[in-house]
């Protein structure tokens, strides 16, 4: 039976991009369905009725949702170029840091990007603390996965794209190369990796998009 592999995504979603990157690493062919989240397709709503979000990977008619869950599914289904470590402890660590990335790093960076005044100062301090932990994880390694890109690199990949965009828009320094040299180098290495490089969404469109997303937060009156 021919494999049917379909990816529902948007042009800009960093979570969807993780899946595009993973599928490329695995050398898999698939169809793309580009969604407009302001006008979600019936298929999107059918395949992800609970969260109504992208990405959704549909494999032989069966949908998988939530990007980190999709990454593990891809890794377990196609064994070439493994993404997760084999060792149970290393695997647990990769999952831990991916979760930390979602729940703490992304949240604090987004908060710093969209807030002002004291709230922004606090978000920047939290971000700095969070990033110190991530810096530690890169000691002696080119990528989080070691010599080659793995699951955790894909989980943090959004940083390699969005941090400089957020910094440009907001004039904030989110990742200081002097304070976080390993993380800065990782961001460069990941961005420019031959497998990853061609997949970034157009930067000018991204800047425009995130500028627009930031607007309503700026117009909030600070009491």
């Amino acid at each position: 039976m021919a494999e049917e592999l379909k990816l529902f995504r948007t042009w800009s979603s960093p979570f969807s991009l993780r899946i595009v990157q993973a599928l490329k690493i695995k050398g898999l062919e698939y169809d793309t369905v580009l969604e407009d989240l302001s006008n979600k397709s019936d298929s999107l709503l059918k395949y992800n009725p609970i969260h109504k979000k992208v990405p959704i990977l549909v494999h032989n008619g069966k949908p998988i949702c939530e990007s980190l869950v999709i990454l593990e599914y891809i890794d377990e289904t196609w064994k070439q170029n493994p993404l997760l470590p084999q060792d149970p402890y290393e695997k647990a660590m990769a999952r831990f840091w991916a979760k930390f990335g979602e729940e703490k790093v992304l949240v604090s960076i987004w908060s710093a990007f969209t807030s002002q005044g004291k709230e922004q100062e606090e978000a920047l301090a939290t971000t700095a603390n969070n990033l110190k932990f991530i810096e530690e994880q890169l000691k002696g390694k080119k990528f989080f996965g070691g010599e080659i890109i793995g699951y955790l690199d894909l989980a943090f990949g959004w940083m390699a794209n969005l941090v400089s965009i957020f910094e440009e828009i907001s004039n904030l320094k989110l990742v200081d190369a002097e304070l976080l040299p390993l993380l800065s180098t990782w961001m460069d290495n990941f961005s420019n990796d031959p497998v990853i490089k061609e997949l970034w969404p157009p930067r000018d469109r991204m800047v425009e998009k995130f500028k627009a997303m930031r607007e309503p937060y700026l117009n909030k009156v600070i009491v």
Partner: protein
Amino acid sequence: MATRDVKLLGTWSCPYVNRVQLALKLKSIEYEFIEDNPYNRSEILVKNNPVLKKIPVLIHGNKPVCESLIIVQYIDDAWPIGPSLLPSDAYDRALARFWAAYTDDKWYPLIKMLRQAEGKEEKEAIIAKLAEGLILLEDAFVICGKGKDYFGGENIGYIDIVLGSSLAWLRVTEIVVGVQLLDQTRTPGLAKWAERVISNDVFKDVLPETKKLLELHEKIQAFIKSST
């Protein structure tokens, strides 16, 4: 495996800790339980979970693993002998992970919110959300359980552990708020599943008794009142 090789930092009343206890018990892994007071974190906790400073923490041969869902999966990976906690099929595993994440991110936090809610309207809104969630979980039970007793099929599996560990505080919340959340008529499959789970020996051994949790809840309420 020597008992001292596996340690669990946690507290008896925390459902996230209970999950790990359930996993260890299902795998027949001996371990040392180190009670950690959530209101007065120990040095051993901060040393082993410096990032989040939360329980549970599993320490296996001096290596700490944190976050309950990650610990349960770790237990399944590190002790391949014995019953599998996660399904063997990759798609079923993806579903199990999806529903575990849903339970933790969207559904379970509502239970504590309900206990802390003030005012009828706020409570009713949360109750409605919980009810919606239970209907989704009922569907999940049908799909994942495939007509068998548990989400894991014939045997207790990952979602049974993740959702089952919430039943103790669910029951306490029903009593405290005076509402029936898990309902035979709305979610018959899930209601029967819950009865099966709480009468299962492994769960009976691990999940705290309703009476003890109620006492704890009252103590916490009194403490909150006295400090405001």
